[in-house]
C-alpha cells in the first residue's frame, strides 16, 4: 500500500514563531488532506489539497503532486495550535477510497 511519512515527529515552538510540517507519500494520489487533532480526539479539517496551494488565515499548504510531497505552514503560532497534525492521502486508481494516514507531527506551542 501507499506509504505516508511525516516530519518532524515532534516540534516545540515559542508563541509567535513560524513552522513548516512535511508529508511525503510514495504513490500518486487523488486526495490529500491535512488535519489537526485536538486533545479530545476530534480531527479538524485544515485543507483538502491534492495539488496546488491554499491559504486559510495563518495556515497555508502546498502540494507538489509530481514530486509526492505536501507542506503545511503555520505562521505566528499560538498556544491553541498545539496538538497533533496529520497528513492523509488516498492513492489514485482502481477502487480505492480509503485515506492512509501518516504518524503525525506533535506540535507544542509554549507561551
Amino acid at each position, binding site marked *: 500500500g501507499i506509504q505516508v511519512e511525516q516530519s518532524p515527529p515532534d516540534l516545540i515552538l515559542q508563541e509567535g514563531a513560524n513552522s513548516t510540517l512535511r508529508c511525503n507519500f510514495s504513490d500518486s494520489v487523488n486526495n490529500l488532506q491535512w488535519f489537526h487533532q485536538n486533545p479530545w480526539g476530534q*480531527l479538524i479539517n485544515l485543507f483538502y489539497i491534492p495539488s496546488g496551494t491554499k491559504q486559510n488565515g495563518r495556515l497555508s499548504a502546498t502540494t507538489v503532486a509530481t514530486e509526492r510531497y505536501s507542506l503545511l505552514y503555520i505562521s505566528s503560532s499560538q498556544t491553541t495550535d498545539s496538538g497533533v497534525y*496529520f497528513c492523509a492521502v488516498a492513492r489514485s486508481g482502481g477502487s480505492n477510497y480509503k*485515506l492512509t494516514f501518516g504518524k503525525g507531527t506533535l506540535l507544542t506551542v509554549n507561551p
Partner: protein
Amino acid sequence: DAGVTQSPTHLIKTRGQQVTLRCSPKSGHDTVSWYQQALGQGPQFIFQYYEEEERQRGNFPDRFSGHQFPNYSSELNVNALLLGDSALYLCASSLNGGTYEQYFGPGTRLTVT
C-alpha cells in the same frame, strides 16, 4: 448544518463481549468510512460503506462488521472483543468517490477490560 455525529462518546466493555457503535453522516453525504486509532498512532481504515454495501475493507478481521442504513447512517459492530480493540473509533463521511473530502466525527473511545 449538523456535522458527523457518533454515539456513544465513551464505552467500557469486557473481553469477549460485543459492541455496536453508531454514526450519522454530515448532511448531504452518502458515504461512511470507519477508522480505528490506537494510542499514539494515526487512524487505520477499517471499511467504507456506500449504497448500503461494504465496498472497501482494510486489514481487519471478520470480527469487525458494519451496516449502512437507507438514511446513510452506519453502525460498526465488533464481536469477541480483545484487549487490543481498545482504541478511538472514528467515523468519516463524504460524497461518493475517493476524491472527495472526508469529514470526521468526534469519535467513540472504547476501552476493553
